[in-house]
């Protein structure tokens, strides 16, 4: 039995009167592909924001391996080994692709404080970054300003930013959102081929993609955990069908 990389215990988050996440628990083992699904407004992105530190939680606990992280700042959590992508593309538009990845690379080191010497000249930075850029398929665009990239290329870049530091835990929020079908296939393969020493938790809207990629699935509905299990179990689960086809 692997030690859990991510453990969530009864996590709740309320915004004023609205309970966005209602006592959700889950555990993700090392190397697992865990997909979170649920209809719109189910609280999936809110859950992610609570995990990565964008929002402070109202109650419960989040553990990265055996360390409680729910009181740490977003930056501190990232440095512990969490890489994250966002549902709406969030990259540095005015900077080049290389600069984007360099920033991601420097974020976990103390080299970000160096006030002299070019950023690319930092030990190991250039090689690791160019390697990552080619791994996500953007080698030809290394020197391009990100604002000139297509939406799909920006999504690729975003994945690259999350991967460049070899995170323990990768949080992907609907990585294929807004992509054309051919791009989705490429992304699907990118995610499928991620090394197994990275643990992946993913929010996905497309049921087929979710069930094809996942080792385990969590289903959320209106902030609550409705079902949890293997893809097959979820496929058979009647409550899940009701949730998606509107009987609840």
């Amino acid at each position, binding site marked *: 039995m692997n030690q859990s990389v991510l453990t969530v215990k009864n996590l709740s988050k309320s915004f004023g009167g609205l309970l966005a996440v209602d006592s959700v628990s889950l555990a993700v083992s090392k190397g697992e592909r865990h997909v979170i699904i649920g209809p719109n407004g189910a609280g999936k992105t809110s859950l992610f924001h609570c995990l990565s530190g964008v929002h402070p939680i109202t109650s419960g606990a989040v553990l990265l391996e055996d360390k409680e992280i729910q009181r740490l700042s977003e930056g501190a959590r990232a440095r512990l080994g969490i890489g994250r992508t966002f549902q709406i593309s969030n990259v540095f538009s005015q900077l080049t692709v290389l600069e984007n990845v360099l920033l991601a690379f*420097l*974020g976990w080191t103390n080299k970000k404080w160096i006030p002299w010497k070019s950023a690319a000249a930092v030990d190991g930075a250039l090689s690791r970054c160019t390697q990552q850029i080619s791994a996500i398929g953007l080698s030809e665009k290394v020197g391009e300003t990100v604002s000139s990239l297509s939406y799909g290329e920006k999504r690729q870049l975003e994945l690259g930013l999350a991967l460049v530091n070899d995170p323990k835990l990768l949080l992907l929020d609907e990585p294929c959102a807004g992509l054309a079908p051919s791009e989705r296939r490429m992304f699907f393969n990118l995610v499928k081929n991620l090394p197994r020493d990275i643990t992946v938790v993913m929010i996905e809207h497309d049921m087929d993609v979710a069930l094809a990629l996942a080792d385990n699935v969590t289903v959320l509905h209106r902030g609550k955990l409705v079902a949890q299990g293997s893809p097959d179990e979820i496929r058979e689960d009647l409550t899940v069908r009701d949730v998606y086809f509107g009987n609840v």
Partner: protein
Amino acid sequence: MTIRRAVLVCLLIGGLLSWPYMVGGYWLSLLTQILIFGIVALSVDLLLGHAGLFSLCQAAFFSVAAYAVAIGQVKYGLGHLQAIGLAFFCGLTLGAIFGLSVRTRGVYFILVTLAMGYIVWGIGYRWAGFTGGDSGITNIPVPTIGAFDLSQPKTFYYFLLLAVAVIVIAYYRLVTSPFGLVLRGIKSSEDRMRSLGYSPVTHLYIAFLISSFISSCAGVLYVYFNKFVNPVSASLHVSVEVVVMAILGGSGTLIGPFIGAAAVLAMRNWISGFFEMHLAVMGLAFIAVVLWAPNGLVGLFRRMTNRFKQQ
């Protein structure tokens, strides 16, 4: 660096070096002021062009450093090195306090820095017993370094050129370093930076301190050039002018702040020569720049050359 650029840089350096021998006292004084205020504009642009923070209190550090030298030497008989040390101490201390403003963003930051800068002006103006009030402090002794008497305009100018060179080189290394890249990342998307492991506020605070240091350098140079300081040096007007210099010249560039300083000071000198309502004209100029040349002169130049290239 292309051949054309190298030639331009050589011409620039040659021009700067030979300037005192090509022109008379008025033009020498003008270029001296341009270089001094260009340094302040540079400090503005570190925050504006790189970190995305619009600070309206840079004149406060400039002025406090100048006053520290003035009061230290004239009232307390300090030696030059001691007075300069005091100036940096005061400038940085003020920077450390005003740096709290980086906990705010956007409009709040603008307003907070404006208010803080104004308060420094107000204290300079009201605390007449200590600062000399409206009349300021005069007859400030200027140092002599070895054989070089800095109270001589030509000697001072070359010393200033040296100082500018050092500052510009250090600034260049800073903005091309990881630290500089982090600032630009923060300017581009602060949220993203946090998710990548950064604490943006710490970086911004340090940038603010560095900016106050650069501004203090200019203050020391200013007071030795002018031999006089008064509260106007801390006024909102100066803070706004240096921002306009940074933008007008071309924000985010190395030479932009100095070009902007040249444009603003040359224009002001020229206008006040024959127009009594020169503030109104300056105001109209600001309006024109904002509406028609928001990327500054460098941007305008680039747009024009692009259009020329396309034909």
